């Protein structure tokens, strides 16, 4: 009978709305690593804007018993579009909370609090959206032409809602399954490293905040068009927690999981519990719902942190040998020798144009100084790096090698002094821009993107990918596909060279220490640096292989790549680095070839006496 059909229509609409919300939140949380605890703000904003755009001016409309701003009486779909746009704009004030500086959990708290705050303000400030009473008698789309209470209309509405949800699903897949999506997940796994590879973390986060906000706004519009009323009671901060629960249950980082979660938690819970007859304590059932949601969150995070549908591993390699058992370090190190590194020629792989090799000064530091809480670690270091050479940086522990390297790369701001790139002062240039300009650094500590496959790790580093931007991603595979295949080719080729092909499709997080180092070196090379800053690249790498890598670096340098290498394995320095700069107690002690340095008394002292 059609009463049931009406109910079905309602459930369809709510299901679509919840799905849109979860998809949007999942893109922020599951893909970009943004814990947006203020998500509900965006949905609410969209709902309000859709309402006031579709209603007439408040003095006249329905007796003027409610007040609100605007009231433009726009025809569908303008109010919905307006809602989406507003949802996006709403993201801007929150950008400061998701910047690189703030701890993730602090930012989350900030957003949570914003949600509470805005709800209170709207609730108490009547002129804006009619306060606690909310805005009612919001005209449903085309309510003039058709009867919104008709079954046909209701199903049509449900249909539109579902279509929108599906469109959102495909839009988001388009974004996340692109090179840009790869960069988002890279940022999620390790934002500092992503930044050092030239990804603009702040911009990426902002765009995801905006994209998610727009979808949230749209979902709000769809809902308010259906229930024709929107009030603060409908968007308490806890709504967001329910959505988070949905995503954790469904599976973060998986669009299908988000939809599943939406259907299970916000929709399923509500509709099922409605059938329970009232018990002697009416609070019981709703209260138990909340308890259950709390338990779901804790239980899943403990027993199945990846949710029902976990994020799926992206298989890029043509020879899709998925799920390679990750070997323990021992075996793998012997395996590493299998690489045909010596036969490889990276030059055309890395698109290096010939040997433009004048050995001019490309990078220089001028009285570079850095102090941590009053303790000076690097003081007045002035060094010059020549193009097309491998410059070594050595020195005892605490000599300030890594600190100097970090300041050159821009990941650490100097307390005083300058960094000059081809004579230009770049001291204030942010690290990701330096990376774009061709200054690529590696890190001493493991810095792979854990939940990206080895191949993804490498491809993500390749610069100037047409698909590695929001608009680029939107233009779809047809636009970036061929190029991406090429990039994967190049990455696989290098992987081959390092004898790690069999790991192409396994998560980088699972590799042994030595292998992870190699991934990092390969990644840095694929970033096609003009200046390559390596921080102890050979640590934990098998000596034989270390030497092969060294030879490769020599060839690259010969064809114009500039390399700076911090390394304590002096054998490496001997073999490959010229010149070598010795730092001790944060100062430049000496410079020259290793042979010269060994002859220098103060160097021997620095190492043996202090």
């Amino acid at each position, binding site marked *: 009978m059609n009463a049931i059909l009406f109910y079905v229509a309602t459930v369809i609409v709510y299901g679509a709305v919840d799905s849109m919300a979860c998809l949007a939140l999942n893109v922020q949380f599951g893909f970009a690593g943004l*814990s947006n605890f203020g998500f509900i703000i965006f949905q609410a904003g969209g709902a309000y804007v859709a309402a006031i755009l579709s209603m007439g001016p408040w003095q006249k409309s329905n007796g003027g018993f409610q007040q609100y701003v605007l009231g433009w009486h726009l025809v569908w779909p303008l109010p919905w579009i307006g809602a989406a746009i507003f949802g996006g704009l709403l993201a801007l004030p929150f950008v*400061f*909370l998701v910047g690189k*500086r*703030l*701890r*993730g*959990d*602090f*930012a*989350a*708290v*900030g957003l949570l*609090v*914003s949600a*509470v*705050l805005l709800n*209170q*303000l709207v609730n*108490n400030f009547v002129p804006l959206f009619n306060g606690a009473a909310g805005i009612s008698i919001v005209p449903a789309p085309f309510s003039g032409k058709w009867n919104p209470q008709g079954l046909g209309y209701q199903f049509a509405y449900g249909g539109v809602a579902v279509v929108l949800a599906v469109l959102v699903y495909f839009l988001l897949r388009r974004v996340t399954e692109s090179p840009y999506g790869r960069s988002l997940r890279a940022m999620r796994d390790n934002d500092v490293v992503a930044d050092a590879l030239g990804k603009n973390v702040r911009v990426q986060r902002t765009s995801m905040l905006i994209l998610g906000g727009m979808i949230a706004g749209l979902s709000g519009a769809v809902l308010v068009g259906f229930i024709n009323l929107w009030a603060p009671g409908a968007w308490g901060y*806890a709504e967001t*927690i329910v959505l*988070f*629960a949905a995503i*954790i249950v469904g599976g973060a980082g998986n669009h299908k999981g988000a939809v599943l979660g939406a259907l299970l938690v916000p929709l399923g819970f509500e509709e099922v519990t409605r059938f329970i007859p009232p018990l002697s*304590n*009416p*609070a*019981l059932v709703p*209260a*138990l*719902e*909340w*308890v259950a*949601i*709390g*338990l*779901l*969150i*804790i239980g899943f*995070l*403990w027993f199945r942190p990846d949710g029902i549908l976990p994020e799926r591993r992206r298989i890029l390699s043509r020879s899709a040998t998925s799920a390679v058992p990750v070997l323990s370090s021992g075996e793998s190190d012997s395996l590493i020798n299998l690489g045909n590194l010596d036969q490889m020629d990276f030059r055309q792989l890395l698109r290096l144009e010939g040997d433009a090799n004048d050995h001019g000064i490309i990078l220089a530091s001028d009285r570079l100084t850095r102090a941590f*809480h009053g303790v000076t670690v690097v003081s007045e270091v002035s060094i010059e790096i020549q193009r097309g050479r491998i410059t070594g940086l050595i020195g005892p522990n605490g000599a300030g090698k890594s600190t100097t390297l970090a300041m050159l790369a821009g990941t650490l701001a100097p307390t005083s002094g300058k960094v000059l790139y081809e004579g230009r002062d770049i001291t204030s240039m942010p690290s990701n821009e330096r990376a774009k300009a061709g200054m690529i650094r590696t890190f001493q500590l493991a810095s792979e993107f854990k939940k990206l496959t080895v191949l993804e790790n490498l491809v993500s580093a390749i610069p100037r990918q047409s698909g590695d931007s929001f608009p680029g991603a939107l233009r779809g595979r047809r636009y970036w596909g061929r190029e991406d295949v090429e990039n994967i080719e190049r990455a696989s080729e290098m992987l081959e060279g390092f004898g790690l092909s069999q790991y192409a499709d396994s998560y980088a997080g699972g590799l042994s220490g030595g292998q992870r180092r190699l991934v990092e070196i390969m990644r840095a090379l694929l970033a096609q640096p003009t200046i390559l800053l390596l921080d102890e690249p050979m640590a934990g790498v098998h000596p034989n292989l270390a030497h092969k890598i060294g030879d490769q670096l020599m060839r690259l340098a010969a064809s114009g790549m500039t390399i700076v290498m911090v390394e304590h394995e002096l054998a490496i320095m001997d073999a490959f680095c010229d010149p070598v700069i010795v730092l001790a107690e944060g100062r430049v002690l000496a410079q020259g070839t290793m042979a010269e340095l060994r002859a220098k008394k103060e160097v021997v002292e620095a190492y043996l006496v202090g």
Partner: protein
Amino acid sequence: MSVFLSSLGFGLISAAVLAIATVGFTMQFAVTNVLNLAYGSVMINSAFVTYYLNYHAHLNAWVAMIGGVFTGAVASYLLNRFVFTPFQRRNLPPITIVIVALGVDLVGTFGLQAIIGGSYFSYKQSLGREVHFWGMYFSTLQLIIIGICIVVLGLIHWLLKYTRLGKAMRATSANATLARNSGVRTQRVISSTWLISGALCGLAGTVFAMNTGVFDATSAQLYIVLMLAAMFLGGPGSAYGAMIGAVTIGVATELSAGYFNPQYKEVIAFIVLLGMLTFRPFGLFGSEKTI
């Protein structure tokens, strides 16, 4: 002037309750790095235990309070022992712990509501006679609460500065590994921290309920926001910062209520919190996490 003084008076009361709560909250963060957003639910559960002893076991409210304090201590200890510690062992990102804490908060708050229903409760307790000086108004009850607050903060100061345990807490919070190298059994220290902070939580819950005069299962849900504001103002993890922060927030909210509009009195707390998060995430004084 009279507005100022009377608002100041109310501010002092709110500050007293808030200070007790925030100190416990911030100690948990300092020693175990847990942002325990479930704190409010423990508060309200403790407050209810006090109510139960006071109303059904016919104990004097002040006696019943001991039960509340005990509840807070035990509940917090168990929470850390069986929820937060296991999760932390998996060294997950801090955000996961926050989400877990929110889950716990739901269970705590609505578990209580499922049992006691949604109605509201008041202690069997007289406000005592009205006291009025320097343009401030207090009930005897409120003066007692302020007194309790001063004593408790004094005790905390004594604990942290002059006792073996207190110093061990600060050492653990500064560098747990080194503390162990020095022979400190950090696990015990952490447990005692949660017991003590939990006791504060229980106490806070009870005086919170006494001061509002009436409470229900969800009364403390938004209180955590004021605590966060106070904590971040004084620097997360700093007990003394928390005291100063609490007094500032307590007084500021009531002043804004007196001069501007009581409806928006929490707004100032929110603004402070967002401002601190944006510009000085480690507080006005703190540069790093230190008890």
